[in-house]
């Protein structure tokens, strides 16, 4: 099978990830449970993960790196802390349901979106400026659209939020591991990311970078301040109730080391080259519409397309039957499809990782040529 669905989960991982997880299962228990070897090893692994993440994502305080189950978990923590009932929230218009569904649970929230066409960052910033002037209590912005690979101008968005003293939450689900992320430079309140996509960790892991603090979603044991019946007021304990996913943390740490060693910019360059090859082949096919940025700097390794007269789901199924794994439909992001005008049937999406090859892209294009 040729796997082109890394925007959902990277399937191919560095071998060190599975090795680290197996070692953790056999040799580590839970951090802070005692001064014995297996607990101490778990503690060291977790701290090493926080320190490596802080280093990679421009954060001076590793204790502000919170281990989550996935990006959705981190986004829920952040949204439910940042957005109070009745608040006015500004979204990018390219958000995932992991943002919009938590928002929908908060009473009286008034949501507006920045309106600008796909791959038009300048227009995006102009509308953002207008809407910031009109007043908002918080901005939530994905770094990269999970449907179109559109890179939002987060450096500029963060600068505007800082200038307006408006809290900012960045969803780095598609950017972590390929684009520069600097929590301290951005001055963001939260940055959420999964472990299992561009960081090459296992499913069930994620990171939430927290500038100050957050409201817990779960209460329980933390191995600290045990006599108190409230959660500790310090991170990471405040947001990490219960036994940690230590095999997951060990695997994610191995993934981060792979990303650091390979270099996010090298991975991005590789994925962009594959995307350009796929896009160039797809546009030559009859009736195929490809959502490709004119400025290649606006898009990373995620590409959506549609074929005239073909249901995206049926097309994805036909590709699966021919050994090509892609994703179709709304990609859990109906807002993004509405912003792009593709909300009817959605699109077919291909997405790449460091392990994909040009040969695989060519096989995908061959199969597509046989289907349209």
């Amino acid at each position: 099978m040729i796997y082109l669905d890394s925007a959902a989960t990277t399937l191919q991982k560095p071998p060190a990830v599975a090795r680290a997880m197996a070692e953790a299962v056999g040799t580590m228990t839970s951090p802070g449970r005692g001064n014995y070897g297996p607990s101490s090893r778990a503690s060291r692994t977790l701290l090493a993960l926080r320190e490596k993440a802080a280093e990679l994502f421009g954060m001076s305080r590793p204790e502000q790196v919170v281990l989550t189950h996935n990006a959705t978990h981190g986004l829920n923590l952040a949204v439910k802390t940042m957005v109070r009932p009745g608040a006015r929230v500004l979204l990018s218009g390219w958000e995932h349901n992991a943002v919009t569904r938590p928002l929908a649970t908060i009473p009286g929230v008034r949501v507006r979106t920045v309106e600008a066409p796909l791959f038009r960052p300048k227009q995006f910033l102009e509308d953002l400026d207008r809407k910031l002037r009109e007043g908002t209590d918080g901005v939530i912005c994905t770094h990269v659209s999970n449907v179109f690979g559109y890179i939002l101008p987060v450096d500029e968005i963060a600068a505007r939020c800082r200038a307006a003293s408006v809290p900012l939450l960045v969803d780095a689900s598609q950017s972590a591991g390929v684009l520069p992320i600097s929590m301290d430079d951005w001055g963001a309140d939260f940055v959420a990311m999964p472990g299992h996509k561009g960081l090459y960790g296992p499913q069930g892991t994620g990171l939430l970078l927290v500038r100050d603090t957050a409201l817990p979603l779960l209460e329980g044991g933390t191995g600290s301040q045990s006599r108190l019946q409230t959660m500790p007021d310090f991170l990471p304990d405040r947001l990490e109730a219960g036994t940690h996913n230590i095999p997951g943390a060990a695997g994610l740490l191995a993934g981060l080391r792979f990303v650091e060693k390979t270099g996010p910019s090298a991975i991005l360059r590789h994925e962009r080259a594959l995307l350009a090859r796929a896009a160039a082949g797809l546009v030559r096919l009859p009736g195929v519409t490809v959502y490709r940025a004119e400025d290649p700097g606006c898009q990373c390794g995620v590409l959506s397309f549609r074929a005239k007269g073909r249901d995206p789901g049926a097309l994805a199924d036909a590709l699966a039957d021919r050994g090509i794994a892609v994703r179709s439909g709304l990609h859990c992001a109906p807002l993004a499809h509405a912003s792009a005008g593709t909300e009817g049937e959605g699109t077919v999406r291909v997405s790449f990782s460091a392990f994909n090859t040009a040969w695989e892209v060519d096989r995908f294009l061959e199969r597509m040529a046989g289907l349209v």
Partner: protein
Amino acid sequence: MYYLIMCRSLTYAQRIANALESAGVGARILRSPAEISPSGCSYSVRLSPRSLTKAMTVLKHTRLPYLGIYVGSAAEHWREVSP
């Protein structure tokens, strides 16, 4: 007799212990004695008396926060000290 640097979380205790070890100061993380931990479970970094001065220099340099420094031993009461 030895000194304990009491920390509010395991993460801070680990960071302080790592900073001290990097500077050549022997440090070991342990559970804080119940006597000095009224809120329940916390963590401390254990130091030998001769390491205290150097440890204080490291802590000042790294600006890692801690809750207090105690002197004592398992056989006697702990008292907070001002280094």
